[in-house]
């Protein structure tokens, strides 16, 4: 029997372009909260922002790994139909990984950091952050530094999964190798390329 597939973008050319520009701004300015211009129609449990990112970045050249909460039959159909991406059987095979349940996220080192000659062959994590964009009171901020940040920036700790900052230190230590992370909120994204260092 035919199963329905979520529609994705309504204007794919322009919506993938504006989505890409938001991600590019986010990766070029780590820590900056960049509003997502589009919400795409995605599978149950995926935000419109997450669906838009997958539609923009993934195709048949990019093995994708979906964490168990993202990998519903509907989501698999969605990715197969719109992107044609092969399913990565393990995180380290993934060009892109969708993590909807941050607390059960595999360790960062489970993904591939690339090689010294080809550091760009590393995984990019699309990491769901339900709180992203919310200020909250008495929130602890991490100090972040690196290319793209004018002096120093701040990143609220409650946007990240528990224990992320410690894992990130190890990841940043692999430079020029390392994984890159895009924090995906309901309506905005924050880029964390491997060059970012976190303190505090």
């Amino acid at each position, binding site marked *: 029997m035919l199963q329905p597939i979520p529609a994705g973008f309504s204007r794919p050319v322009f919506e993938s372009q504006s989505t*890409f520009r938001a991600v590019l701004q986010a*990766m070029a300015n780590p820590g900056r909260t960049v509003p997502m211009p589009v919400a795409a129609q995605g599978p149950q449990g995926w935000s419109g922002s997450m669906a838009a990112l997958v539609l923009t*970045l993934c195709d048949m050249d990019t093995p994708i790994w979906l964490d168990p909460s993202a990998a519903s039959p509907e989501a698999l159909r969605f990715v197969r139909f719109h992107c044609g991406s092969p399913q990565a059987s393990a995180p380290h095979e993934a060009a892109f990984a969708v993590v909807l349940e941050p607390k059960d996220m595999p360790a960062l080192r489970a993904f591939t950091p690339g090689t010294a000659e080809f550091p*760009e062959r590393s995984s990019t994590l699309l990491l769901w952050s339900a709180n992203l964009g919310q200020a909250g009171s008495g929130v602890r901020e991490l100090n972040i530094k690196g*290319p793209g940040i*004018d002096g120093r920036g701040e990143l609220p700790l409650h946007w990240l999964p528990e224990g992320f900052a410690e894992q990130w230190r190890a990841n940043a230590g692999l430079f020029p190798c390392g994984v890159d992370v895009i924090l995906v909120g309901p309506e905005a994204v924050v880029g964390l390329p491997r060059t970012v260092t976190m303190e505090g």
Partner: protein
Amino acid sequence: MTAETMQGYNYAYLDEQTKAMIRRAILKAVAIPGHQVPFGSREMPLPYGWGTGGIQITASIIGPLDVLKVIDQGSDDTTNAVSIRSFFARTAGVKTTTATEEATVIQTRHRIPEAPLTDGQIIVYQVPIPEPLRFMEPSESETRTMHALEEYGVMHVKLYEDIAEHGRIAKSYDYPVRVQSRYVMAPSPIPKFDNPKMHDSPALQLFGAGREKRIYAIPPHTRVESLDFEDHPFEIQKWDEACAICGARDSFLDEILTDDRGGRMFVCSDSDHCARRVREDC
């Protein structure tokens, strides 16, 4: 989109799968400042050496809200600049401009505008030879290993040989830089006069080499140092003359021969900068 937007091609000429591939390469390039990321460069409707790499980057990032400026050696009105500008006006329906501060995307061949770039702007460089070590080491697999091992001694030897032979570092354009103290990078054939503008720039800098199939990037606010020696520090070009049109003494000047009896004048290479100064004086 304007009524003149060309029909029969995909938006901004490239197909969507190619754009996605280039976009992924750009994101990784931004994450590894100064590192050359290979990409599947396409054949474009203009010859290699005319900016196929820059055009492919611009086509992959540009959207209907963008305002595009294109310069060739600083000038908005040379053949290369005019035809690339009209290419995107026709295939992407974007607004174009010659004013640096109005542009959201600036594609450039061999100059950085004199007017300071701003946060949110993207400058796209056309790059003929992306590998700074190429003339010292012809093998791609060797230079790749040298970058991986941070093995840049040969570059300093080259600069030192210049000093031994000429008494100074003779390279005046495509002067090598070190990005965030890691990768040695070719800034494309911009004059070394423009090198300091790359350092700590608020704009995002993207580099595309079409024939050599490489993309690299410098994010905003990134450390970019021109290679030098303690006793031979990096210096930019200086002129005794001022611009013959606007009188500027702080811009990059082109020498123009005016007759066959030795007559010559110096004028700003950045035509927008020069015209603005003339307008504001009046």
